[in-house]
């Protein structure tokens, strides 16, 4: 069994390299957790989907979810502490000691290089997930429609997810009924 200390350390590593929003965490979770066999490849999209359906910081939600899958409640606490502690300490250090951090020329140059690279790190797991997960034409329609509505029409992801949950639930129920009767 994975120890809580190991969970904490791996999530501290993930948290230290999550730069930007929670989506930047996805390639790290894949690389650290799926490759170690702590969570399965199939569970990853489920974790993201359900973490996104709850309020709060996406990265924290994914940590709670993944931590729970590994070691229950204690695992979710260890994972959340791990993914937030590096940020917490770094921010405190900056707040106390480095005024003008955001204008420091070295920091600015480093982040000029990191930002475009992070975009690609978000894009690549999406390509991998689509190739492995989208097995029907219907799945591709859902992916394309979601992408279009969020990226180009400013829809909030939560409304799309809630609508899909309700519609998918009704469709699945009707299918089950029909099969039950036939």
């Amino acid at each position, binding site marked *: 069994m994975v120890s809580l200390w190991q969970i904490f350390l791996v999530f501290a590593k993930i948290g230290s390299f999550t730069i*930007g929003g929670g989506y930047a965490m996805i390639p790290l979770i894949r690389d650290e957790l799926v490759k170690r066999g702590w969570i399965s490849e199939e569970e990853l999209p489920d974790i993201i989907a359900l973490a996104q359906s709850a*309020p709060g910081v996406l990265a924290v939600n994914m940590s709670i979810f993944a931590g729970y899958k590994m070691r229950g409640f204690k695992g979710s606490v260890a994972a959340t502490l791990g993914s937030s502690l590096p940020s917490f300490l770094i921010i405190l250090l900056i707040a106390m000691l480095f005024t003008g951090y955001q204008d420091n020329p070295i920091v600015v140059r480093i982040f000029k290089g990191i930002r475009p690279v992070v975009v690609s790190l978000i894009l690549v797991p999406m390509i991998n997930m689509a190739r492995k997960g989208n097995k029907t034409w219907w799945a591709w329609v859902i992916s394309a429609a979601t992408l279009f509505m969020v990226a180009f029409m400013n829809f909030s992801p939560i409304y799309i997810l809630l609508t899909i949950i309700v519609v998918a639930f009704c469709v699945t129920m009707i299918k089950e009924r029909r099969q039950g009767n036939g």
Partner: protein
Amino acid sequence: MVDPLVFAQLFWVFFIIGLFTFGGGYAMLSLIQTQVVTAHSWLTESAFTDIVAISQMTPGPVGINCATYVGYEVVRSSGAGHLIAILGSFTATLAVVLPSFIIVLTIVRFYTKFQHNRIFEGVMSWLRPAVVGLIGAAAIILMFSVDWVGTKPGVSVVEENFTDWISWVLFAAATVASLVFKVGPIPIILAGGALGLLIY
């Protein structure tokens, strides 16, 4: 002496923010701004803008970074010392995480129980491709902003992330490294930072 009420208010405000933010850290920023700058006047607009910039330019989830920093600044600006201000950081960060804990733990228990249920599986088979679309959208939003109704409708590059053509070369190189050569995300981020330092 700091009014202990400040901590209670910080806790309450960030708890509400954690409870009502949907869509991750960036959606959270505007909510924090409304509460911290407009409603409570704890920080000025320009102080908050600096905090947002710093939250994006430090490792870690943006929402956590911002809560930590705001908690610190709010207590510090009320005249407290560093140690008391750290308590402000802790209060804000804990408060913003707490609603997630309650809600996500409920969802994950439900998930482990119904993972192999046919109806649940049916719903998930619709949600998974939606997540693919959401991630794609997140990447596109970091690259381009689309304007349908403004004075000059059209697509423009997000200059914050893509400052010049070198950014696109770095982006392409990272994509090839990750997709074709299976290089892990951490070496790619480190290389991006090092190249940024060398080139710019």
